[in-house]
């Protein structure tokens, strides 16, 4: 493996990791703040990708505007789902099981709705002007769109850090993660907080779907592929741990990128193995403090 090849794989792994992180951060945010396990998170990714196709490829909206609108659209669907469906089962016995089931139903419904609206053929989105070709750095030619994704990822991480740690909204979200009842007693509208967090998280998922669309083709099965990968990332980082998700995404992204070079056939197994090892030895996640958990 020569150096330039190494860098290429590194960049490709980073691109995958960034996309993974962007989806997984939403998933882990909902779990951390609201104790909601959103199995349908991949479906919001898919909604974002299809909305981007509709706006950018069909309606010829400006690429960047299309990205943002797709994210907002997915977030809107998320808010509707939270208010009309998920909110009704909070606090029920066997709640976790019913959440998984309810969001599993959402996967089935959204998958079919997407097929009805956009058909089953593959859809593609052109890369935006200025990001179609490679960038030359020394002897290396790196696809500029990959670099763009990595930069966007870094911006989102910094923005998320700022919102979570420096603003009032972030403080409320962190407080909700610790004790929702107490938060309600302090005069904060807890159901509204949950809805907003769910909306932001699904918007992030939809935005990622739109951002990834020019790289990967848009298909009805996209949501299902994404959810399993982002689940792995969230579990490795620790469910509800925002920064853990970042580390988990980097680990899985690079592991896949280099695994494919070393053992092409079995590379997809690695991420499952890592997930299993983490769940067995440290179910709280690699980057979360150890807690005592019983049954």
């Amino acid at each position, binding site marked *: 493996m020569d150096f330039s090849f190494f860098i290429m794989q590194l960049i490709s792994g980073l691109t995958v990791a960034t996309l993974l992180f962007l989806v997984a951060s939403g998933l882990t945010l909902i779990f951390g703040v609201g104790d909601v396990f959103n199995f349908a998170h991949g479906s919001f990714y898919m909604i974002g990708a299809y909305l981007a196709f509709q706006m950018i490829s069909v309606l010829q909206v400006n690429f960047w505007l299309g990205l943002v609108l797709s994210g907002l659209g997915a977030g809107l669907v998320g808010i509707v789902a939270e208010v009309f469906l998920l909110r009704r089962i909070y606090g029920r016995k066997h709640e976790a099981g019913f959440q998984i089931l*309810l969001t599993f139903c959402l996967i089935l419904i959204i998958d*079919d709705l997407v097929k009805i609206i956009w058909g089953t053929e593959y859809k593609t989105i052109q890369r935006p002007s200025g990001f179609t070709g490679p960038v030359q750095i020394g002897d290396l030619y790196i696809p500029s769109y990959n670099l763009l994704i990595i930069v966007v990822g870094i911006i989102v991480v910094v923005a998320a850090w700022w919102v979570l740690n420096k603003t009032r909204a972030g403080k409320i979200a962190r407080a909700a993660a610790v004790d929702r009842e107490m938060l309600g007693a302090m005069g904060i509208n807890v159901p509204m907080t949950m809805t907003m967090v769910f909306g932001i998280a699904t918007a992030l998922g939809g935005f990622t779907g739109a951002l990834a669309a020019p790289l990967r083709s848009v298909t009805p099965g996209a949501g299902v592929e994404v959810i399993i990968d982002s689940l792995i990332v969230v579990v490795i980082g620790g*469910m509800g741990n925002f920064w853990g998700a970042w580390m988990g995404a980097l680990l899985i992204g690079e592991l896949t990128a280099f695994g494919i070079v070393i053992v092409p056939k079995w590379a997809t197994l690695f991420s499952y193995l890592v997930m*299993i090892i983490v769940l067995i030895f440290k179910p709280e996640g690699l980057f979360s403090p150890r807690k005592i958990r*019983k*049954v």
Partner: protein
Amino acid sequence: MKTESRFRETSLWATIMIIFGLVPVFMTSTYQMNLASHILIWILFATAFNMLWGLTGMLSFGQALYYGLGAYFVGLMVKYLGSAWFFPGMAIGLVASAIIALLIGLLLIRVGGVYFTMLTLAFAQLMYQIMFKWYNFTGGDDGVVGIMQPGIFSNPIVYYYFILGIVIASIWILKRIAYSPFGMVLRCVNQNPDRVRFLGRRVRRNQLRIYIVSSVFVALAGGLMVGVDNSIHTDMFVWTTSGEVILMTVLGGINQFFGPFVGAIALILIEDIVGAYTEYWSLIIGTIVLIMVLLFPKGLVGEFLQLKHRFLKLKKHGG
């Protein structure tokens, strides 16, 4: 009172036997026989699954692992060793599933709640990937087709009665387990594991036992399915298969022993009827289960029992 309930119990089993026993008499087309066989096998799968979730409170999103294993042991043995290995393959599949369930179960019971669900999902997906990639041995995505049973069992009607016998016997055994002292401990584990410990019972050992029992019966369902479809496919391992069995269970009701039984019949019939009109059947199923979860969380059987209870109360007050 005791004789009355025993009479009821016997008549329930007799009704089930008669209804399913008469299927080949009235349904003559291969398609309908096939549908009836599918229903029986999914009944076993769903009932065995609910021994974990409804009874013990362990939601597994990976029982497809054992369903696939049971099927692949039969399918691959017939492929490589000939059709005489159909039934030995099924038996070996059950033993192997029990061993694998023991090994995986020892790891699974270390974690609880959502983590348990995720870990079961991870193991099932890992096995799916292995079967998918190991093309030379398993046939990968193509699976194996043309797997025939030996002798007279290749006759669909004979095989149907074979399935009926095995499924009814299995359900009967599972019901005995659910209402045994062991089943009572499992119910307690579901409600309050700490108190079970105070009473001097081992929570994890009981969880492990029921995990193995459930997995073996799920593997049996998988092995039986090979004779119906005459093929095996990697889709048997995939997580949506585990999801489908959860949908059935909720449709029927998770807190009743016969909930998954009714749910499996309902879901397969809905799939069949809706599938005849539209390809978007998962939209319909998703919506139906969504409504069940939101408005009728007790499921078909649970809500029916509640209605009946209310009706009887009303009658008593009126008379």
